[in-house]
């Protein structure tokens, strides 16, 4: 039963991502990116990772894309300045190499892990929260310091200064 949905969401994700890259208008790009994120959220639901699916929609499709749209609006491109992505041979070579490496990685996943294990979390917020506050408490606290440093730095950089 899962397989058709996997192909539905996976196919949609690939399609929308390609459209994000190749359409000319950046606003259209941003909209396609939202759709791509939504398809990814669908894949997370298929993996029973409900919290991840919700976060994907709320944070990526919601908050981050609003920022993208703001930036596009502030840059205020004229219609004759719009151009889609141009492909050059070097990009194809780099992407091809990366794809070859990735193919090799995915075809040899190793025997160390039972794929079912991923589902033991069942994607409930409670389980994730417990993990964050016990095993991951050091990185979790460090993120709060990172955010504080980021706020401080942003305020300094954004402030109008007399530096010439």
């Amino acid at each position: 039963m899962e397989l058709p949905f996997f192909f539905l969401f996976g196919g949609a994700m690939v399609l929308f991502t390609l459209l994000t890259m190749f359409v000319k208008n950046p606003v259209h790009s941003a909209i396609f990116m939202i759709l791509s994120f939504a398809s990814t959220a669908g894949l997370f639901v298929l993996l029973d990772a409900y919290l991840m699916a919700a976060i994907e929609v709320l944070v990526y499709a919601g908050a981050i894309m609003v920022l993208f749209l703001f930036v596009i609006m502030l840059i205020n491109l004229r219609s004759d300045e719009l151009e889609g992505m141009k492909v050059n041979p070097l990009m194809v070579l780099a992407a091809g190499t990366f794809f070859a490496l990735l193919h090799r990685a995915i075809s040899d996943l190793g025997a160390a892990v039972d794929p079912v294990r991923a589902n033991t979390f069942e994607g409930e917020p409670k389980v994730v929260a417990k993990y964050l506050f016990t095993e991951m408490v050091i990185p979790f606290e460090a993120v709060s310091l990172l955010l504080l440093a980021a706020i401080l730095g942003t305020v300094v950089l954004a402030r109008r200064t007399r530096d010439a």
Partner: protein
Amino acid sequence: MNPAELFDIFGTEVFLAVLALVLIVTDLLDGGGKLTGASEKTRFVTYAGLGAILVSTFFLEPYGDGQFGQLDSFAIFFKQFFVATALLVMWLAAPYEVRFPAGRGEFSMLIVFATLGMCMLASCNDFATLFVGLELVTITLFMLAAFRPGLPRSIEAGIKFVIIGAVAAGFMVYGIAFIYGATGSFDFAVVHDVIVSSEEMPGALQFGLLMLLVGLGFKLGAVPFHVWIPDVYQGAPTPVTAMLSVGSKATGVLLMMRLVYSILGEAAGQWTALLMGLAFLTLLMGNLGAIPQTDLKRFLGYSGIAHAGFLMLALATGSQDSANAILFYMSTYLFANIAAFLVIVVVSRTADNAHMDRINGLANRSPFLALVLTVSMLSLAGVPPFAGFFAKFMVLRAAVDHGGLMPVVILSLVMVVVGLYYYLCVVKRIYMREAVDSSVLEMSGWTRGLLLLCVVVMFLFGIYQSPLVDFARAGAASLF
């Protein structure tokens, strides 16, 4: 969870976090509501705090591997290194700070936050902490690189650093996901067990480690992940460049050493050829790139790439001798670079670039500065009797003794000679050229003191190396 264990391992980080918070309050009270903020009190708190924390690191007891992190002699060595670097950078920044019209207090705080991230990396034993710690360092440095928003070059440095840094971080976190997928754990020890127990590493794990190498190569400044270095070094405020060239590079070195010696461990042999290849390219790129440079900071950027090449060469051989050599090398590199950047700060006091013309005829304007810069260049070039010579000697001997690939070793010897050429070109400017501008260079007693300290260290550990060698050996001992 045991709070005592957390404090035993992450005590230095807790002190640094408290220092940063105290700085925020001090700066706020001291500024009296003015945006520019008088920084005397803030500066005093920074020096006193960092000094006290540096002293405290010498009382750290190795704790071993805990649930949340590890504190071995290697971690302690690097915590001392990072706090000392921060203290020296703040000391170096004192004559530069007048050029930050606003945010002098914030400058100290961001340096403390970056140091906190670096110390966390020294103690991390899982990939989640590694990633967050690395981001704490990198994101703080992004902002510091753009810390003079009035200068287009500084903004350019910040933006280039952000874009390339974000791509490198993206590759790295992708790789960490693959490592987790192949081993089922973030823990270094578990990943090590999987690598050693399997006859051939699973493809997913190899891919993950390779992507991790991209992120670490970015920090270290190894080719082909070095492209950001020249522009960012040139554009960033000079104290920040000093922090990038020593502290940030050392985080790359530290994590590469953990990766090669601890995580790969006995399987490190599989990576020798790869690391040797990267070392080859890095040596070539750094040394040849440095020759045509006319900006001192850009020049030191390329010189930093060249030094990363020597460090990679030592890493690739994966022996205990090479680990000792790397720690020794980093210690001498710290003092040589701080001295060079401090001279740049003094010489280009009011100007916003560091063109090489500024040091023309420095010997007539200030014999003391000329001497300091000469000693620093000779130490970086690896000329006896300065400490840099012995560092290069240790690296090359470790590479020869432990089966370094001969073509790479020979290339590194050729590159030592090339390095000698471009470092001596700088010395030639100091003594042989006419000064473009012959105004008097003013220095405070503190600045003089720091310059003197660097020269004494470079000279002393050049002729009497054994204390520093023993210190480095004690630091590297816990890796094996």
